[in-house]
Each structure stands twice: as C-alpha cells, then as structure tokens.
C-alpha cells in the first residue's frame, strides 16, 4: 500500500463506525429469514433440524452484533440461543420455552423495525 493510499484511508474508528452503521441498516434483512425459518419450525411440528438451522442463524447475528457492539440485538439473540439449546437438550417439547423464544424473536423484530438501536462506538481502548 502506498503512502498516499494510507493517507487516504479513513481512520480505524471511522471504518468500524461505518461497518456498525451498515450492519444496523441491514439488520431487518438479516432478521427476517430467522423469523421465516422459525415459522417453518413451528409448521414442521418442531423439527430439531430446523431448530438447529434457526440456532445457526441466530448465532451468526449474535456473534456479529457482539463484535459490532450492537448491544440490544447481542443481548436478545444470546437469550434466544440459550433457550434454543434448552429446547434441543430437552427430551420432550417444551412449549413454554418455545413461546418464550417466539416472544424474544418478536422483540428483536420490534427493535430492528423501530430503528432505535443502542450501539455505542466499538471500544478501541480496552
């Protein structure tokens, strides 16, 4: 990379802030497939395979949200992961857990649709 290219490149915190803003702007498109898959899971009469697919998608959102400091989505998607793991480990269908997962997924959708997402700058100094 030349000195000129280096000088023209935005600062690291500017690049991270841009990534964070773009991620938040596109979150709705990322959350919709999770909800669709969740509906498929319910319609399938609780197929564990489909639930594992839901888990993988939520896990991806949780991981990216944590690194990009998108706090509410990080928190909610982690809650969903924990409850999905509990459902997968249970011997019987746990309807209460399934209802709780549905509620949290709806909460994620509400947060994303509201556009009011608390995302502090990615901490560069810790």
């Amino acid at each position, binding site marked *: 990379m030349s000195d000129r290219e280096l000088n023209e*490149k935005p600062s*690291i915190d500017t*690049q*991270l802030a841009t*990534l964070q803003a773009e*991620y938040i702007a596109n979150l709705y498109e990322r959350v919709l497939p999770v909800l669709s898959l969740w509906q498929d899971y319910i319609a399938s009469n609780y197929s564990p395979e489909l639930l594992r697919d839901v888990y*993988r998608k939520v*896990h*991806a959102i*949780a*991981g*990216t949200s*944590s*690194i*990009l*400091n998108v706090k509410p989505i990080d928190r909610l998607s*982690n809650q969903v992961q924990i409850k999905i793991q509990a459902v997968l480990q249970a011997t019987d269908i746990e309807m209460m857990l399934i209802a709780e997962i549905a509620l949290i997924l709806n909460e994620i959708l509400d947060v994303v649709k509201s556009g009011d997402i608390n995302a502090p700058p*990615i*901490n*560069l*100094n*810790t």
Partner: protein
Amino acid sequence: MTTCPELERVLYIEDEPDIRLVAEIALRQVGGLNVITCAGGEEGLSLIHDFMPQLIILDVMMPGMDGPQILCKIRDLPEFKTTPVVFITAKVQADEVEQFKRLGAANVISKPFNPMTLADDVRAIWAACYE
C-alpha cells in the same frame, strides 16, 4: 526451546462477512499482519498452498464444514500438520477450551474480540507455540 520466527501470514476462515471485515482491520491495519480472510473451509483449503499461512484462525460454527472439520482437513495436509490453529468462538467455557485443544487447537479466542488487541492476542498464541 526453538527460536520463534516472526508471524507474518495469517489465514482466517469465518463465514460472517462483517466479522471478516473487522478482523481484516484488526489483523492487517492494526496488527500489520499479512492476512487473507475467506468465507468457508473449501475456499480456505483451496488457497492454503499458495498463501502458506504460518497460523490459521477458524470460526467454530459455520455452515458446511465447521471449524473442527476444517482442522481435520488441514491436518491431512503434510505441510500443515503442525501449523498452529486457533479457534474463535462466542462465550467459550473453560471445558470447551480444553475440548478444542484436545482436537489440536493451539488456543481459543472468544468473541467478541477487541479489534485493537486481536493481533497481539494472536501473536501471543504464536509465541507460546515456541516456548
């Protein structure tokens, strides 16, 4: 004790595009490493001989081949039998770290990683491989 060579080339396999971008900033721009990121195991394995990474970072949970499966494929390659492999995963528990080490990982980095210290963390793992 073997002298620790300088770490220069790192391959990072991660399916999430946003995390790849943050890792590129962290490892290349902050850490000064020569890093190639790719989205999955097949892509990573296809370029491993051209790039000859000294250290490989693998996300654990990915569609298709997951991190441990990619590690097995890497270990099948004679040139990479001892190349340090680092797993990166969310909220890792102590027993999981030991499980990943038993699989052959040099260490585990937990998400969320700090972009300003990721390269230092990777270099520390690299140095520990030569102690």
